[in-house]
């Protein structure tokens, strides 16, 4: 009898970890300690804090979502391999074999772009042919795209230091770089829900948003040559950038995901593709989860932004257009959450609302930079 009860005991979180989890944690801890030993002398207190917090959060992330335990070390290993190919010379990006075709930041990012487009096509093919196999392959391609994107960003980080020690900075400083981050984060969020809900059909809806981001990225590269690494203007030289920007993009990514699920929801509720897509309950649920996580991170990002503003501009809230639009986005989703959680609203209205929410979000993310002027200095088109 004891045995039976024991079988129903929910194991505590730490007891549930296996050797792989601990090995993963050990590697990350050792890696960050090694980095600290090498570069600690160049960091200020905040940067040291960010280094260890990042290591800690990645360990937590890996424990919470197991595939991360493979993805992150793989990305790290390939990035380090790429970096080792430079021999300290930027010019080798266009000459050394591995760099030229795979791991220079630009090549990796182009790979990421190509893979995302392929995955989009794959998911649609899978949806059309009702083939789980094709969808599984597409998920694999999405994973590789995310990996290539991460490698691209990490190598780009290194490349920026090769241009000049004073030029080097984390690649989150302009529209080009954050679009890459957006694609990666949206893809990873999607992959998480794909696994959580054991449902691969929604890729056909989420991946197009990533492909749109990729299209913008390519246009930005070929037409505007925006892929050049630029030194940071003084306002952006702050450790806040390292946390404010990623937090924001978890928000943007999750909101985009929710909007695309909203589109699927609207189609299904009209009977379109209903036999191929998950039930409305599931769509409702994913939409809520995505908006919840997006809202949580967007809250953090906005607060971090306010703290940064307090340090850079002399006031935590200046009603700068970007700030104001962030508030509008935030209020919009706060209202959405109230309607769902307090009023118990479900169904097409919330789906429409999530779709419109994306328009508001896109305006806050892009429109403000294009149409309104303000203190936010990065990313004029």
């Amino acid at each position, binding site marked *: 009898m004891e045995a039976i*009860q024991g079988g*129903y005991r929910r194991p505590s979180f730490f007891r549930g970890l296996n050797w792989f989890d601990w090995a993963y944690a050990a590697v990350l801890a050792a890696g960050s300690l090694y980095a600290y030993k090498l570069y600690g002398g160049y960091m200020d207190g905040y940067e040291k804090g960010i280094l260890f917090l990042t290591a800690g959060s990645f360990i937590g992330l890996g424990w919470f979502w197991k595939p991360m335990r493979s993805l992150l070390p793989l990305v790290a290993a390939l990035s380090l391999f790429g970096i080792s190919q430079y021999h300290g010379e930027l010019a080798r990006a266009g000459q050394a074999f591995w760099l030229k075709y795979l791991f220079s930041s630009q*090549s990796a990012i182009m790979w990421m772009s190509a893979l995302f487009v392929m995955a989009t096509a794959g998911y649609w093919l899978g949806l059309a042919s009702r083939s789980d196999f094709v969808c599984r392959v597409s998920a694999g391609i999405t994973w590789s795209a995310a990996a290539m994107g991460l490698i691209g960003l990490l190598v780009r980080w290194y*490349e920026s230091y090769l241009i000049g020690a004073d030029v080097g900075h984390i690649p989150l400083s302009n529209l080009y770089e954050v679009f890459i981050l957006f694609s990666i984060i949206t893809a990873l969020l999607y992959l998480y829900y794909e696994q959580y809900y054991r449902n691969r059909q929604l890729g056909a809806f989420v991946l197009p948003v990533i492909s749109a981001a990729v299209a913008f990225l390519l246009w930005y590269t070929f037409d505007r040559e925006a892929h*050049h690494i630029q030194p940071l203007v003084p306002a952006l030289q702050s450790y806040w950038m390292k946390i404010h920007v990623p937090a924001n993009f978890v928000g943007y990514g999750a909101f985009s995901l929710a909007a695309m699920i909203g589109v699927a929801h609207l189609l299904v509720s009209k009977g379109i593709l209903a036999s191929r897509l998950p039930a409305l309950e599931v769509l409702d649920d994913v939409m809520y989860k995505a908006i919840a996580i997006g809202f949580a991170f967007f*809250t953090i990002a906005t607060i971090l932004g306010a703290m940064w503003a307090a340090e850079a501009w*002399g006031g935590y809230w200046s009603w700068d257009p970007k700030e104001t639009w962030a508030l509008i986005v935030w209020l919009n989703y706060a209202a959405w959450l109230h309607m769902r959680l307090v009023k118990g609203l479900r169904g097409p209205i919330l789906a429409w609302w999530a779709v419109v929410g994306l328009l508001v979000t896109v305006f806050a993310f892009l429109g403000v930079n294009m149409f309104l002027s303000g203190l936010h200095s990065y990313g004029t088109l």
Partner: protein
Amino acid sequence: MQPSRVPFYRAVYELFSSMRFAISLLTVLAIASVIGTVLKQNEPYANYIIELGPFWFKVFSILGLYDVYHAGWFLAILLFLVLSTGFCIYRQAPLMLRELKSFREHATEVSLRAFSHQAVFSPIAASASVVQRLTAYLSGQGYRFKVGGDMQTLIAAKTGSYNRLGYILTHSAIVIICIGGLVDGNIPLKVQESLGYKKIETRDVPSGQVPAISRLSPANLSFRGSVSIPEGGAADVIYLNVADGYLVQDLPFQIHLKKFRIEHYATGQPKSFESDIVITDRASNKSLEGTVSVNHPIIYRGVAIYQASFGDGGSGLTMNGWNLFSPAAKPSPYKGQVSQAFGLSNGAELYTVEVVDFKAFNVQDTGEAEPAAAKKPGFWQNTSRALSSAAAVTSSNKRLHNVGPSYQYKIRDAQGQAREYHNYMQPLNIEGRRYLVSGVRDAPNETFRYLRLPVDENDGIEGYMRLRATLFDKTQYPEIARRFAAAAMPAESAGGEALRARLAESTVKVLEMFSRGGFGSLARFIEDSVPKAEQERAAETYLKVLERSVLEAYQVSRARAGQAPAQVDERTMQFVRDSLNAINDSFFYGAPVYLQLTGFDEVMSSGLQLTRSPGKNLVYAGSVLLILGVFVMFYIRERRIWLLVKAEGAGRPGEILFAMSSNRKTLDFEKEFNMHKQNLTELLNLETAVDRSTGGLMQ
């Protein structure tokens, strides 16, 4: 019968604490916020008048749209939001706390049977050991429980109750943040202003002359203003911009600016702005030295000092004034200082020169690194360029160059009319040739039109100026014309003497006309005196004569300066054509004198922003609560389980009623319900349970 009346205050309370009202406020707030992002805020009022016209300017002004976020009605919305959320907390928090504590162990069988998620396990031999097994199961699943009941045993269990704290945390956070914001807003100031205790200063006077009614004492709790200090200068006040004027905020200390520095990247883009300052306390006379830079403020006695902007703090300049229309080939020297004025005369009229600004660095995209840029690269070229990141990384940076110092000034004539000028100190490369350029515009909202003065073989402007002087010197015309005629018609040609004299005569005429009004004078002359059909050919001829004779003028000017004649080649001809264009454009330059910058002694000024914002701590504290609360609300899920163990009764077997509820109906909840049902079935050694659930998620 009288309907029972709700008292007014009660109705207001009901309205304010209702969620519909709160959602409406959120929506109104969002829409109102948009206005301020579309209409530029806090611009000088003159700009709004130009943009909107007097009528709409007035309307917008009454609505407070030039500073929406501080307009009374906007603050009122915020206040309503605070009240609404406050009332909501007041109303909900006790309920939430009760929920947090309670196990709801008094739930009745009837109420449990009304649950949407429930199941019945039967038959069961109800006993203490069953209850014990069930409670062990529940605690194994992380639930806390209470066992009670008199007739039958009710196990009431719950987990994740702290979810309810989330509501209290987030909503009080909103209230706290808004209060913090209102503390730092200018409400006290607005009140004082509307009561007439404070008055906005609109005159442009030294801070010392601003009367007390427009000054704020150092004890002022909260302010945000700025001041610009020249190197070597000091300030003990800052200016708060309000509507179309300002208020002076006295500081409890003095800031002395020792040095302002800009550092640049190799590409010329700015890397850092830094001010070395000394803060001297007024009370204790103690001093503190430090450096303020972007993202690195200094905080002194609760006042944060930020690097906000920079400018010129009164650089000393030396200039050469070239009279553009006189036969003099020598310039007169001038001395000036940024933000100061000096007098200037062209011999006939008096002008004032007001020096507006000076910049030692001008980084421009000169487009030089890629001469092929004119041809749009093909797709493959483009692709390979985008792929090889290393090359790409630098190519666009290479085009950025520092083109050296420039300065800006206004020339005002005796009638008070002013034009603005923008001169570069060094020649710029334009279309492969080099010019000293000077921009002119009639009004601040226009773009500069640039006069290009070609430089000579020594990269100086002297060659052009000598040529210009010669062309405005009528006594030189016969000699120029003679040389031209001689060159055009060699001595031995037929009809010689007379023709040559006629040619020389018309050359003098052409030169005279050109020196009177440029190409325009020539064109008018041709229009008036040549039949229409031949005008084009005549123009060509005249131009050729002009060009050739100006070449001779150039040689004359060189000879007078003791220089060897210039070689007659394409370069010299280009110089002659450029000079002709420059002289022609001088007629539209609007000033009689070109002020060439020859030297400078740079003095920078630093724009500092100073704030005291005691509300910040409240805002930050509220923010922490908000983040905590949001995560608690989303990720601590409250669930309750009831297990009603009923001993067997008259004619029916013992059974267990299993009911489950949550304040969040999600798929996870559905899954968990099914899992518990399954587990309990197994635990009780039953085949199946009878699911009495009435509905799924959509309830």
